[in-house]
């Protein structure tokens, strides 16, 4: 499978982070929350009406808006959760 944006990752699958392309401030905050290249990430649920994503990164769970998730590129894993 190929490169994708986190916001398009289907529920119940995992992926590895390939890169984060956003302004420094946000990138720093993402790093502190555990978003680093190579780490595994999963989207647990998506709120309706375009609401936020609920993602798990390492042992941390965070919510983030879909537009912010767009700045995270991932490589979907071949095997599911």
């Amino acid at each position, binding site marked *: 499978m190929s490169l994708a944006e986190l916001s398009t990752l289907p529920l119940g699958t995992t992926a590895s982070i390939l890169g984060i392309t956003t302004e420094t401030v946000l990138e720093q905050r993402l790093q*502190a929350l555990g978003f680093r290249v190579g780490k595994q990430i999963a989207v647990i649920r998506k709120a309706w009406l375009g609401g936020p994503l609920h993602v798990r990164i390492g042992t941390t769970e965070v919510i983030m808006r879909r537009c912010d998730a767009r700045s995270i590129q991932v490589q979907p894993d071949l095997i599911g959760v």
Partner: protein
Amino acid sequence: MTNSVSCNKCNPDGSPLLDVVSTAGLKQIAVLGMPNTGKSTFFNRFTGANASIGNWPGITVDLLVAKIKLGQQETQVVDLPGIYDLRGFSEDEEVVRRFLESNPVHLVIIILNATQLDRQISLALQVKHLNLPALLLLNMADEAPKFGVKIEPEQISRHLGMPVLSMSAKYGQGYAQARNLIALELSRQSEPILAGKIDKNVVSEAEFAAEMGALLQDGFLVSDAFKNTLTTKLDRVLLHPVFGLPIFFGLMYLMFQTVYTVGKPLQDWLNLLVEWFKTTAIEPLLSFLPKFPHDLLIDGVYGGMATVAAFLPVIWIFFICMAIVEDSGYLSRSAYLMDAFMERLGLDGRSFVMSLMGFGCNVPAIMGLRVMRSPALRLLSMLVIPFSLCSARLNVFIFMTTALFSASVAPLVLFSLYLFSFAAAILTAFIFKGKYPNQEPLILELPPYRFPTIKQMLLRAWGETRHFLRFAWKFIIFGVVAIWLCNNFPTNVEPASAGTISGTIGQALQPILGPIGINPKLSVALIFGFIAKEIVLGGLAVIYATKQDAGLAGAIAREIDWVQAYSFMLFTLLYVPCLSTVAVIKAESKSMKFALLGVFWSLALAWVASFVFYQGARALGF
């Protein structure tokens, strides 16, 4: 216990040590950590929860500080704001940097969440590169097994070059060892150390990542257990796309019902007690006084004190509930549930959480907006939060609704005021969102579900009650006495009649307040209610307490009907948040103009809402 690595590092770049003569013999500890890692819980345990607010060189915000004795050593402990990154750009991160750069310390205590060490260790690594004497406490050790996390403190200590211990600040495991370790490290550090310029001290990103990887490899083991915990199961229900929101509002309603059903009888009971004390002790004691000072002391001063007392039960029970809500982790879930809606109002999930906090008190809620970076988002949230029906207003309304409506209707009336509170907030956001556009990202941690200990709940409730007693009573007694004087000057006319100061003010305001059903007597209560909404209740007591027979409730009910009363409550709900809120809005926005905008907008909205309600109800024949 870990073998403690020597931390007696000398001052790294020889910058002059600040004046320590004034605090000779006093050693300085700074507590540092990521947000939500239990810093405050630790700080309270460590210092016995008797902190005060201190001033620090180079820092404008208030920090909590406590003086304690560790063994024989006098020690001063500062609780720094929670931060993610020492290089970060948020205000809190700036505060911590400035603190460490301008205040030499003998020891930095780093507190991290053991379960999330895989990401949080970055902060400890950053501190390591500052060459400050430090030790690391891995908190929430009680949760680690549930998440399948295993920590090797010795390994981590070896990588960091500082002592490391795991503990639970909430339940106390490992705390005694941590305290001993702190005392030991402190005794080894005779000179306080100042951090150099902080940006310079940080190594390159790649180096940093490698260091972090190596440390976690050796010291942090995790199984798959964290993917299936009680929290993940609960989330399936509470974050459900369809049931999530109804459950949320159901739970909020339940909380409000609890406060009402428990708080109301307590408030009544306390009122009786205060009244009994007045007739059996105060009145006989003061009976020798002439009428004027006698009434001033009894109706003004004692009446004001009685108002203060009447507030205590509801505040107490309300903050017991708030402690549960805040600690539960459910608030961040509400941000998830509400964000889509809030986004359409130009706000975000955090604004919603802070508005909920505003139902306790608007002031800390507005200060909590500091986590947002976008000034526009902060300003818009600041316009919205004052409409949250805070516990002071709740107290006033509990009293008024039960005085004026039958027992079965009163809770519904009160609930309708909550709905108005939401409606006003939504309308405000909708109107002003164009003026304050923002593109602030929303990224928020979801902590696991937790329940506070009884001690935590009592501490919180007591803290708020004490705060209220310390600060509010002066305002309230001042306000109530002022209203009494307005009602009784000049002394040659009937109290509260048209000839008194109140009467004059009330008459002058009739062109504005008449159309919304507020009579001249009530006007004065509203004016002083600007200082603090609590005064409105004390003011009513003064205004209607002239006839002793039926008590306040009966006296009010005889003079105004429910349409007037509801209009009055609506106005009280919406008009100008209290003086403290205005002051904090001015301080946080750094703009008098903006604070005034908030004042005028809320006044206008209050008037229009009351006008539409009052005239509408009258037109319908009520």
